[in-house]
């Protein structure tokens, strides 16, 4: 028996049962394609989320009140109000001697309130920020100006509008110089921002910006910051700056050595990592679900091979009569199922990539920046799993076939 003979035997058998062969392959194709598709779309979605976060800037550091685990979110991110971060901390951060790499820092507070303009009222979110927010958030003022640090310090009642909010509050234009009433307190509009586009988590174009201290004292009646953001001069200085910030704040908060910090300092890079972890888990989860269809494909192979064994009892008997040994029969059926699985795997990879590509053509038309990504791992997993599925699920039918006694087989009607 030549090396190629078992393959020749198996292929001739498959050729003799084309429809069954095609349908079984189809089952594997769907399973593998589902795995490829899910892994590809997961990778693309991850890239989308990460790119949106990166838009915020990779040289930003967030300072959040409350302690947190290394990779978990701080308490404030869960909606728990923590009041440990104060305006004094912000001022100290801005002093060059404390954090030499820091170029801008802003505190953030936010709330929502009924805002009236020219007799109409809207429920609107507002944010109290420092003038440094312009540089931190890459804001662009399209009309007028942003407010000054002095205006923040003397609690000026001035406001800057996000582009969408300006259109809504002043549909006929003329926002600049008009008066807004927030919580019955009049604010003068000094500027309108250019549109920035929504990011994953919020739409800054809908906000009303007021000076930080004004928001704290006049609108919210608080003396703490929801959080602060600092811009660092260079990405390579982020770690050093974060350390400086932590040292400064620990000192200001009178924390002893070994005592847990009552604030958290986070970089965008860390946020990316956390988000990356979350989307990874999601992708694995979806892949596991898609793998179920591969399993079903495998059971399809077993089913089809068992039918084949039953249909071909006479054939097996004949093969044994002319000298086939049990292992020849076993090999033949195993090669058949491995071939079904291998072909299904290859076609499934191609089909999955095709659908992922189509998705990458369609999704951008819905307004998302969608990259076409096919992880190499997904192709390897798809092929490896389908081949082993073919082997494992082919084993039992092949073994059954090899056990058929030659004479039983020839007698079988």
């Amino acid at each position, binding site marked *: *028996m030549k090396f190629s*003979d078992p393959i020749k035997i198996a292929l001739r058998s498959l050729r*003799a049962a084309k429809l069954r062969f095609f349908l079984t392959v189809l089952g594997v194709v769907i399973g593998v394609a589902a795995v490829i598709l899910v892994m590809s779309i997961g990778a693309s979605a991850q890239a989308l989320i990460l790119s949106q976060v990166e838009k915020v800037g990779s040289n930003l550091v967030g300072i959040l009140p409350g302690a947190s685990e290394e990779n978990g979110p701080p308490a404030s991110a869960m909606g728990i109000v923590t009041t440990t971060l104060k305006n004094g901390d912000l001022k100290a951060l801005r002093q060059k001697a404390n954090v030499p790499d820091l170029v801008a820092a802003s505190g953030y507070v936010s709330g929502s309130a009924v805002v009236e303009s020219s007799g109409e009222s809207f429920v609107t979110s507002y944010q109290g920020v420092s003038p440094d927010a312009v540089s931190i958030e890459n804001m662009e003022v399209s009309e007028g100006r942003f407010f000054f640090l002095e205006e923040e310090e003397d609690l000026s009642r001035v406001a800057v509008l996000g582009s969408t909010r300006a259109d809504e509050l002043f549909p006929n234009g003329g926002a600049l110089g008009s008066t807004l009433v927030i919580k019955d307190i009049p604010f003068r509009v000094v500027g309108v921002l250019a549109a920035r586009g929504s990011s994953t988590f919020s739409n800054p174009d809908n906000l009303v910006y007021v000076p930080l201290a004004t928001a704290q004292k006049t609108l919210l009646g608080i003396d703490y910051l929801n959080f602060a953001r600092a811009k660092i001069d260079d990405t390579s200085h982020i770690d050093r700056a974060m350390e400086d910030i932590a040292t400064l704040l620990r000192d200001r908060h009178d924390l002893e050595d070994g005592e847990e910090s009552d604030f958290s300092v986070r970089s965008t890079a860390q946020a990316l990592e956390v988000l990356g972890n979350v989307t990874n888990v999601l992708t694995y989860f979806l892949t596991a679900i898609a793998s179920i269809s591969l399993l079903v494909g495998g059971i399809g192979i077993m089913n089809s091979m068992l039918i084949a064994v039953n249909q071909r009892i006479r054939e097996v008997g*004949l093969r044994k*009569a*002319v*000298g*086939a*040994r*049990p292992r020849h029969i076993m090999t033949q059926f195993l090669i058949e199922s491995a071939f079904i699985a291998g072909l299904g795997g290859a076609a499934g990879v191609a089909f999955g990539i095709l659908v992922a590509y189509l998705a990458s053509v369609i999704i951008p038309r819905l307004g998302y920046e969608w990259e076409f990504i096919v992880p190499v791992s997904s192709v390897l997993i798809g092929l490896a799993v389908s081949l082993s599925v073919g082997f494992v699920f082919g084993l039992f039918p092949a073994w059954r076939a090899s056990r058929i006694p030659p004479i039983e087989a020839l007698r079988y009607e």
Partner: protein
Amino acid sequence: MPLISVKDLCKTYENEGVRTSVLHDVSFSVEKGEFVAIMGPSGSGKSTLMHILGLLERSDCGTYLLDGRNATELSDDELAGLRNRRIGFVFQAFNLLPKTTVEENVELPLLYDEDPTERNGKRVAAALEAVGMTHRAKYFSGQLSGGEKQRVAIARALVNDPDIVFADEPTGNLDSKSGLQVMKILQQLNDAGRTVILVTHETLTAEHAKRILRVADGRIVGDEPVTNRRIARDGEVTLK
């Protein structure tokens, strides 16, 4: 030394608790180059006897020496090897692989030959030539008539150059003309020195052999040479 020598063979089947004795105390021998017809009515045990002689089935007791080797002591793999190289089968129902070409059907035993050194397409061609089926080599088995199918089956039985050809009711599914052709080929094989063992229930068919073993109720009840042997010639003799 006889090619086939059996002594006190017996075989019992058990089917859903019912034991049926199919063969008992069967003893005889066949020399190389003989043409033996095993004859008997259906249910007499003749097919079972052929299956045991053809190493498709094991007897429950007795001894079977094939060319001096005790077949009852051989492993399944060794039996498969002997079937492959020393035995050719022709079945009543042809048992060709469906949707497979004539050539590929004939090649089948060669694919299971553990020692393929002398194998080549020439052997397939020679076997098809011997049964006059060269012109149908590329046809699929389903495209052939019954007589052609049986000739292909004979070519398959010949391709490994076996010592013995077993034919189990080879004419049973054929019209008399085709049956005659098949008998003619078997006689030619025997004339060329091959041992042929034919199983049939038809006297006319059996009379193409040189010796008839009569089987009834699982025993050998007669063993005599054919005195007035029929020679199959195209169009001269009918089988039925």
